[in-house]
């Protein structure tokens, strides 16, 4: 592992205001924690596992994470030489295709569930994703 990766992990940890984050892959294991202040009432726990509020300003800047519903290979493009379905900054509408996830030679197209702006795209092109892997950070519009 290298320090750049660790830095990215901690940045993610901070960006999402987590209290504990554990990453395990093969022989590598990383665990990050921050003590929570106990004076304040407990933080709001979302009952919807797929969307995580990541900012304290509730009005405009709340983003959500779209995670993978299946195991497969992530593709940003419909075919090797085609342009990506979406880029960071794009606005997409409910039903627009966000990416393709290939599983057992079948291309599964993931559609947006709501209108939103793409804030971040997590996986690399052609990387393996599992269920719950973060795919996109989006902001509802």
């Amino acid at each position, binding site marked *: 592992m290298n320090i750049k990766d660790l830095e990215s992990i901690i940045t993610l940890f901070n960006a999402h205001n987590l209290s504990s984050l554990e990453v*395990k*892959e*093969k022989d590598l294991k990383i665990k990050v924690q921050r003590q929570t202040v106990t004076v304040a009432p407990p933080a709001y726990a979302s009952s919807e*596992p797929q969307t995580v509020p990541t900012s304290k300003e509730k009005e405009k800047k709340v983003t959500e994470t779209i995670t993978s519903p*299946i*195991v*497969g*290979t992530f593709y940003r493009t419909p075919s090797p030489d085609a342009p990506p379905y979406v880029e960071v900054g794009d606005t997409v509408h409910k039903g627009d295709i966000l990416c393709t996830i290939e*599983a*057992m030679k*079948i291309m599964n197209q993931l559609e947006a569930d709501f209108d939103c702006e793409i804030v971040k795209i997590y996986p690399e092109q052609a990387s*393996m994703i*599992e*269920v*719950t*892997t973060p795919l996109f950070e989006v902001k509802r519009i």
Partner: protein
Amino acid sequence: MIKTLFIANRGEIAVRIIRAARDLGISTVLGHSTADADSLAYRLADRTICIGGPQSSESYLNMTNIITAALLSRCDAIHPGVGFLSENAEFARKTEDAGLIFVGPSSETIRLLGDKIASRNVALAAEVPVTPGSVTPLESLEEGISLANGIGYPVMIKASAGGGGRGIRIVRNDRDFEQAVHISRKEALSFFGNDAIHVEKYLDHPRHVEVQLMGDGEGKAVHLGERDCSVQNNHQKLIEESPSTVVSDELRHVMGNDAIRLFSHLNYRGAGTVEFLVQDGKHYFMEVNARVQVEHPVTEMVHSIDIIREQLLIAAGKGLTISPREDISNIHAIEVRINARGAGTVTSFSPPTGPWVRTDTHIFSGYTVSPYYDALLAKIIVAAGDRQDAIDIMLRALKEFEISGVETNIEEQVAILTSQQFRSGRFNTQLYDQLFRQ
């Protein structure tokens, strides 16, 4: 040899498989549900992949996610464990089609044995004694009643596609026959999507005795003696032991050879079990479990053979090389299943340890028993020179078993082990009801 093994299961059997793989230098990839993201198997596996949500249908039964995960993580083989997809012929075939080794029998063997009537016919073809009854699904009520009178009441109406005691009705006279057929078909349809039923003789004080085998897939098979699984509550096994107190050396020889003949006939590959009912010194074929079983450790302790290891070696093409112990006159093994009475978080846990005691478990202090899966918390297995000593050692182990946060069946298991009936060895599958329902 298999280099990387995908484990499509959870709980103690996933831990068991990881251990056997590790002992062989095979690296492991665990497919787990979101509910099992902090399980012991998760902690022990070399790599983990989330294959779906907490419901089994989303994860442990999700063939596409499992096979995709196995392929993308560059596994050579999938071990299905027990339950879930372990006896699913379609999953075995899809695994084979994806170019992966399915650790188990061929998909055709599984398909054949999954059908009660077909497997009964195979047993008949291999000259294995079966309970008197119909060999084809029941066509009419009249046929059934005539059959029942030929066999002699009581008889049993069973779902042809069934298992786990569901879709079974016992009938003691002509009068009740029609109603029983009606309910049985309805249950069969709702549980198994198939309303085929058939009629068999009902044995009213049987022992559930099963023979463990391993086959090389080319007609050679070896048996590892029997397990007695007669202590059951509502068809759920609670205590298993080997040898059985009702199986003589001669009966063991005959049952073992019957079972070997059947497995040879099937060209059976890997570990499997032939289940018999034994009553009054006679044995009757029930079914084949085309997979490893929860209670396999009992046999492992008697023969000092690691059944999961041998499964992996056979699947890897290393052949069948086990040599079971010939003289089992001074060994006796017992397994007790510790089940949770409900979901909850284990606040403290300390398994029994020490001589002659083996604990197979996936729980630890802080583990949350999920409401989504079965209630098995741990299997305690002991081996000793004779049955009475084994019972005493098991009682010692259960006394040392410490768990808090979830209710368990430990007290009930102690009551069974200390009962005069169990001690004497003279009991049948009604024991649980006799002890706790009368």
